[in-house]
C-alpha cells in the first residue's frame, strides 16, 4: 500500500525536481492564450498595420504613418457618422434601459403564466438582425408597409418614416429598442432575482412606499448590474450595421449613417482599406476607453 502511494507521488516529485512547478500553470493556459492571440490580438495588430498603409486597387502602395488617421479626423462624413452614432447609441440604450427595467420589475414576481410571458419577451433578441431589418422595412415602407396600410384604413395618407431625415433616425432607434430591450430585461431580471430579500422586508415593516423602496433599495442594489448592462449594450450598439444596411443604407442623406456602415462602405465598396481601418481603430480605442472607465466606476461602487 505504501509502495503504491510512493509510486503515485513520484511524477509530482519529478516535476518539482525539474523546476517545472511554476511553469505548469502557464502551460495549461497556453492553448487558451494562443487562441486569444489568434482571434483577438492578430486582427488588432493586422488592423493597425493596414491603417498605416496607402492602398490603391486593393494593394498597399506605401506606408503613410498616421496620415489615414488625420484624413479620417478631417473627413466630414466620418465626423457626421460619429455624431449620428453617438446620438443613436445614447437614445437607444436610454430607452432600452428604461423599458427593460420596467419590464423586469413587472416580471420579477411569480405570477401565473409569468414564465411564458418572459419567454415571449425575449423573442426579438433571438431574431437575426438582418431579418429584423427586413421585417421593419415591411412595417415602415411607405407603399406597402403595415403602418401605411393602417393609416389608409384610418383615412390618413402614406407613412413615409424612411423618407425624411428626422423620422428615419427615430425609426432605426425604435428598431434597436424593439430588438434589444429584451437583453436589458433579461440582465436586469437576473439582477432583481438575485437581490437579498432582507432590506425589502425591513422596508415593508417600516411602511415604506413602493416608490421609496425602489429608490432606496432596488436601485442602489441594482446599480452594478445596471452598469454592466448599459456598458455591454453601448458597446454592442456602437457596432450596429445589419439593420442599417437592410433598412436605410445610411439615408436619407446621411441621417442614419452610422460609423460601422461608413466603415463598411469605405473598406469593401471603395476599397480604401487604410482609411477604413484607421477610422474603425479610432472607434475601437474610444470603446476601450469607455470600457476602462466603466470598470473603474464599478470598482468604486463595490468599495
Amino acid at each position: 500500500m505504501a509502495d503504491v502511494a510512493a509510486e503515485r507521488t513520484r511524477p509530482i516529485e519529478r516535476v518539482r525536481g525539474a523546476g517545472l512547478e511554476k511553469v505548469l500553470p502557464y502551460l495549461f493556459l497556453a492553448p487558451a492564450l494562443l487562441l486569444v492571440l489568434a482571434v483577438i490580438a492578430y486582427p488588432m495588430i493586422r488592423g493597425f498595420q493596414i491603417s498605416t498603409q496607402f492602398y490603391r486597387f486593393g494593394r498597399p502602395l506605401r506606408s503613410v504613418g498616421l496620415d489615414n488617421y488625420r484624413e479620417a479626423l478631417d473627413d466630414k462624413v466620418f465626423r457626421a457618422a460619429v455624431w449620428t452614432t453617438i446620438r443613436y447609441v445614447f437614445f437607444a440604450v436610454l430607452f432600452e434601459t428604461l423599458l427593460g427595467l420596467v419590464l423586469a420589475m413587472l416580471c420579477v414576481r411569480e405570477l401565473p403564466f409569468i414564465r411564458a410571458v418572459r419567454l415571449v419577451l425575449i423573442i426579438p433578441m433571438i431574431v437575426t438582425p438582418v431579418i429584423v431589418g427586413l421585417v421593419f422595412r415591411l412595417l415602415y415602407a411607405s407603399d406597402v408597409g403595415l403602418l401605411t396600410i393602417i393609416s389608409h384604413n384610418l383615412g390618413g395618407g402614406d407613412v413615409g418614416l424612411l423618407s425624411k431625415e428626422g423620422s428615419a433616425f427615430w425609426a432605426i432607434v425604435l428598431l434597436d429598442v424593439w430588438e434589444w430591450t429584451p437583453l436589458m430585461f433579461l440582465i436586469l431580471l437576473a439582477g432583481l432575482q438575485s437581490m437579498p430579500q432582507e432590506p425589502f422586508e425591513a422596508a415593508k415593516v417600516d411602511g415604506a412606499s413602493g416608490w421609496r423602496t425602489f429608490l432606496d433599495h432596488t436601485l442602489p442594489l441594482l446599480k452594478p448590474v445596471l452598469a454592466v448592462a448599459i456598458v455591454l449594450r453601448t458597446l454592442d450598439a456602437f457596432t450596429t450595421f445589419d439593420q442599417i444596411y437592410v433598412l436605410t443604407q445610411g439615408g436619407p442623406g446621411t441621417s442614419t449613417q452610422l460609423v460601422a456602415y461608413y466603415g463598411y462602405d469605405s473598406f469593401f465598396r471603395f476599397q480604401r482599406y487604410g482609411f477604413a481601418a484607421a477610422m474603425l481603430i479610432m472607434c475601437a480605442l474610444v470603446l476601450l476607453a469607455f470600457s476602462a472607465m466603466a470598470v473603474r466606476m464599478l470598482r468604486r461602487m463595490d468599495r
Partner: protein
Amino acid sequence: MEGRQEEQLALSRRRFIQTGLAAGGALAAGSVLAACGGSSGGGTSSAAAGSTAAAGAASGTGTEDLKGTGQIIIGGFEDGALEPFKKVILPLFTQETGIKTQFLLEPYDSFFSKAFQDGTSKSGQFDIYIMDDPWIPQYAAGGVLEPLEQYGLTAEDTYPAPFIDLGFWPPKSGPRVKGFEDQDPTLVALPTIGDLQTLTYRNDVFTGGAPKTYDEFVKTAGDAQKAGKIKYGYVFRGVKGNPIVGSWWPVMQSYGADMFDDKWEPIFNSAEGKASAAFLLQQLKAIAPPDVAEYNSDQEGAAILGGDAAAAIQYSGAAIKSDDPAQSKAVGKLDFGVTPAQTKAVSQLGIFIHGISSGAPNKDNAVIFCKWFAQDRIQIELARGGDLPVKRAGFEDQQAVSQHRLLPVALAQLDSGCTPRPRTPDWSEAEVIIGTALNQALVKGTDGSAELDQAAKDVKAKLDSLGYY
C-alpha cells in the same frame, strides 16, 4: 463561516462584473478591428497559364474544338437576369462541352468584395466572375482579371461597340486614371448579358406611343394623374447613392450634361446638369409617389407592375417582368420605348460582363467557356431564353423577338444612345457623394443646385486625395 461566504460571493460578483466588462470591451473592439483585419493581400495578376488545346480553338466557330473535362466554378451576384443564363445556357454548355458547372450566387455587395478578395489573394474560389460593368476598372486595375487575348479571345465586331468596349482596361476612350495613361487597352472581360435602361409606360396613358421628349412626358403623365386616370405619373428610385444617380442619369445625359470632363474635373454641376437635376427633383418628383426618396428598385417595380405608376425608366431585368402575369397586374397595359429626349435620348448602360479570375483553378475550362459563350448561336439561345443578348445576332433573331418584345426596343435604345458609368475604380465613391447630395435635395424639396455644387467640391477633393490631378 457565513461572513467568509459572503465575502467570497461579493468577490466573485465583482470579478464577474469586471471580467464581463473587460471581455465585452475586448470583444467589441476585436469585432471592429477584425473587420479591418480582413485579408487584403496584394499580389498582381499571375502570368498567363500555359497554352491549352482550347486556347488554340478559333473563336466563334463550332463546338468540335471546345471540349473538356472536369468543371468550372462561375460566381455572380443575385439578379433575375441570371435566371435564363442558369436555366438555359449552363446546361447547354455542359451538354456540348462535357464540362460541369458550379454556379455560385451571392448578394451584389457581398459578391463584389468576395470576388475581389478571391482574385487578389489568388485563393481560387472561382474560375469566372460575372460582374457588373463598373467593377471592371477596380478589378482590372487590381490585377484580378486575366488578359484574354493571349487565349485567342478577341473583341469581335459582332459585339455592339458600347458593350465590348466595357471589357477593356484601360478604357479605349475617355479619361484615364493615373498610372494607366500610357498603357494599351487590354481585353479583360467579355459581355455576358445586355442590360440597359428603357422606358416602360402605360399604353392607356400614353396613347400615342412612347413620349418623344421629357416635356411631353411630364405633361401627358401629369394630366393623367390629375384626371385620376393613374395614381402616379412617374416612379423612380430615390434612395441615396447608386439608385438616385441611376434615375438622374438618363435625364442628365438627355440634357447634354455629363459627370466628368477629359481631365476628371466634375462637370455634373454645369448649367445643363443643374437643369436636369431640377427637372428630376421638382417636375418628375411632383408626379411621383410622395415618399419616393425611400424608393429602391423593389418599390419602383411594385408601383409600375402594380398598376399605380404611368411610367418608369428601368433596367431590362425589371422591364421584362411587365409581361409576366405572376409578377405584373398590368399585363397588356405596359409597353416599352426609347427614353425621352431633351436634346438627345440617352439612357444608362449597365451590362453583365464576365472575366477569368487570375487565380482560377480551372483556367483551361474557363477559356473554353468564354469561347463557347461568345458564339452567335449561343447568344441567340440566350435571347430566346429571355435575356438581353450582347450580340446583334441575338437581338435580330425573329423567334427571340417574337417571344420578347423588349429586344427591338433595347436595340433601338442602344442605337439611340446608351452610356456607361465613368471608367474609374473610384466611381462608386463618387457616386455615393453625388447620390447623397441628390437624395438630400429630394428630401428637402430643393432644385439640387447648391447640393450639386457641394458634391462637385467633395468629389474633386476625394479624387485629388487619390492623385487624379
